[in-house]
């Protein structure tokens, strides 16, 4: 049964008479700074997070360079402490958490729902400016010397540190507000602005993961805000909320902090999984092996992820009873990730696979995410974590997920949706080369760190025994290779903006709804109200049939 489109005017023809793209429709700086268009806001976020990625990467290279030799290489210990702190703060809050949601979520989610924009466009712009304000405040704190507490801000040291903690805390707090506003927008849009005929069981899987991510953003971020406020009060006013000398308990901070920060890692990985859930069916030209499995496991991760925070605190002094509860609960969340991995792999089976850069990123993701995920289950085992906690083993584990998973998927999305966003094609050859180089650089950087950690190298340590040096040198070499590969990747995309060949509306032959629009889309995305009452993964239809069905 086909629902009739609400718009009775015939679809506009291609060519000069059709609506201009969102890039061309208005010009001038003010039309960008004051835009309500979710696509333009997405681009502004894009530029911003690429900048923060560069900043975080610079801190990373600085600290990896310092670790080339067992003693001082280029900086003193106090500076080194600031480097790893600011690397963590930048990468977590200024890059990873916003990255896929604010760039690709903002751009693609409304289009995938058949909507003209998000539910609250002005709020979206506010969210962007809040992000800039948070960024400026945090960077201001960095320029004033930054802080050396680690991105986790544990008391009592965060209470006592002579560094400028408050601006960094305030900046992250403001970023949290931006995140919450974005989350409100995404959830409301998914509920209220789906195209006519689109049931929940037919929304694209990327939307499911952005939705799940938004739930976590909404429910976890306020707790982070409170934890930062409390250490800010302790540090700035000397209140002693967590000070044992006046009866306080520093471990309580860890409970509140990790209640947010564990779900936060799912904020970082769920959108990445959403990208993969789009890339795999498209390049296999086959519907997902089980749509329900991927959608349900998304919600599973979003909720069960809240139950597991204590596994960061196994050796912090919590009761063994509590630790045991958290250890068991932590095992459950891995099940959902496994469901996804098996479903993606099964989707490839008997598909008409087209090898391409986004798919190569998927293969990298598959290997690295499974590897990292399994080591996650390993460190979630209490008895084993006693050995690995606060060593490079944990560092390697979470970088495998954050970089091997999230960043890889970010790069996949950058390539996959590049034609849609900019109307151009990038060089496929350079794309494949840079993807391979990124993978190589990553493995060289982080695989040695598992060995380092298992051998006993503690994390956040400025100096180390000489027998660890060769692994550190390997890791640093890999870091430079990774940096070069990332530069190559983004240079390829940047050059394609100007010199890439013009992209058709649907270069990959995908059935997902955003590919029904021109590349790049017009301001209101669709011609009239599209009729999206069919599955976005129905590859039994041809592209023309899909267009006719949607009334586009």
């Amino acid at each position: 049964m086909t629902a009739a489109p609400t718009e009775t005017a015939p679809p506009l023809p291609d060519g000069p008479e059709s609506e201009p793209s969102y890039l061309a429709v208005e010009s001038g700086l003010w039309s960008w700074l004051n835009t309500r268009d979710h696509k333009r806001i997405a681009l502004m976020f894009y530029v911003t997070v690429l900048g923060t990625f560069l900043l975080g990467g610079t801190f990373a290279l600085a600290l990896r360079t310092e670790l080339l030799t067992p003693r001082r290489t280029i900086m003193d210990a106090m500076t080194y402490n600031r480097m790893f702190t600011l690397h963590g703060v930048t990468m977590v809050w200024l890059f990873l958490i916003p990255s896929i949601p604010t760039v690709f979520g903002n751009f693609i989610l409304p289009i995938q729902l058949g909507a003209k924009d998000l539910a609250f466009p002005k709020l979206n712009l506010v969210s962007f400016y809040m992000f800039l304000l948070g960024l400026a405040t945090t960077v201001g704190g960095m320029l004033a010397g930054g802080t050396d507490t680690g991105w986790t801000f544990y008391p009592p040291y965060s209470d006592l540190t002579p560094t400028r903690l408050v601006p960094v805390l305030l900046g992250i707090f403001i970023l949290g507000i931006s995140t919450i506003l974005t989350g409100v927008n995404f959830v409301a849009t998914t509920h209220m602005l789906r195209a006519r005929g689109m049931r929940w069981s037919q929304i694209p899987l990327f939307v499911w993961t952005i939705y799940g991510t938004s739930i976590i953003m909404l429910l976890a971020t306020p707790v982070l805000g409170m934890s930062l406020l409390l250490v800010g009060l302790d540090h700035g006013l000397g209140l002693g909320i967590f000070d044992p000398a006046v009866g306080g308990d520093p471990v309580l901070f860890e409970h509140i902090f990790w209640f947010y920060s564990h779900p936060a890692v799912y904020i970082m990985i769920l959108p990445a999984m959403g990208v993969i859930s789009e890339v795999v069916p498209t390049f296999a030209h086959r519907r997902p092996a089980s749509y329900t499995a991927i959608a349900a496991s998304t919600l599973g991760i979003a909720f069960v992820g809240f139950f597991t925070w204590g596994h960061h605190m196994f050796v912090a002094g919590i009761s063994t009873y509590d630790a045991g509860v958290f250890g068991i609960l932590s095992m459950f969340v891995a099940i959902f990730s496994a469901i996804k991995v098996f479903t993606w792999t099964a989707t490839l089976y008997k598909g008409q696979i087209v090898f391409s850069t986004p798919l190569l990123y998927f293969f990298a993701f598959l290997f690295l995410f499974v590897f990292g995920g399994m080591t996650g289950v390993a460190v979630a085992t209490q008895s084993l974590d006693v050995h690995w906690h606060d060593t490079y083993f944990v560092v390697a584990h979470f970088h495998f997920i954050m970089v091997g998973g999230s960043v890889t998927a970010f790069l996949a999305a950058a390539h996959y949706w590049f034609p849609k966003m900019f109307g151009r094609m990038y060089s496929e050859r350079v794309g494949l080369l840079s993807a391979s180089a990124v993978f190589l650089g990553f493995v060289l950087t982080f695989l040695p760190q598992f060995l380092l950690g298992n051998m006993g190298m503690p994390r956040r340590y400025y100096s180390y025994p000489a027998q660890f040096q060769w692994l550190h040198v390997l890791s640093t070499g890999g870091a430079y290779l990774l940096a070069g590969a990332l530069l190559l990747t983004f240079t390829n995309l940047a050059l394609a903006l100007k010199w890439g060949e013009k992209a058709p509306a649907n270069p990959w032959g995908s059935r997902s709804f955003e590919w029904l629009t021109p590349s790049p889309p017009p301001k209101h995305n669709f011609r009239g109200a599209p009729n999206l009452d069919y599955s976005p993964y129905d590859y039994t239809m041809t592209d023309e049939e899909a267009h006719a069905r949607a009334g586009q």
Partner: protein
Amino acid sequence: MPAPDNELATLGDQYDSLETQERSLELGMWIFLATEILLFAALFALYASYRSMYLADFKAGIEHNTLAFGTVNMYVLLTSSLLAALSVSAVRADRPRTASWLLGGTALLGAAFLAIKLCEYWRHWQEGSLPGRYYHDRELPTFGANRFFTMYWVMTGLHALHVTAGVGVVTWMAVRARRGFYTRAVHARLVIGTLYWHLVDVIWIFLWPLLYLS
């Protein structure tokens, strides 16, 4: 139909009907309220933890607390909530002027809450029941009492900040109601403001027994 010059009747491009827009605004506010619940959740967890560590001292602290002030404030907030809810009923009954008065009453009671709170803080300051390292109450010199009053200050302080913001929002809405911005057909922006105010009331409904009663 809403008056043509009522700016709130403007339909955003992304909406297909005024009703969808109104419902979206309400849903957005309910989602925001959920985030506020989680904001205070961290403080409730801290309170519960310290209370379980220092139960006797917490009870002593509660008995030492200014029950009269806290209780009057409970009644004040409940009444203000009623007035806010009635303002929505008034708009639905096509009586925006009445709504405006009701909202004004809400704001006034909110301000009264803050005034009483300030008196209360002054009292605590005189007795030395200050938060954390500043605590020097001679009558209850224990760690547990220190923890109790630290949590008291942080929780009521955050709540008072929310009340202040709420008074601002409600006052602004009172003015808009007077000018006829909320009509029977289009008044989601009024509803969402009152929802925020009710949340502030609900938080005090939980703070009051935890900090004053038992």
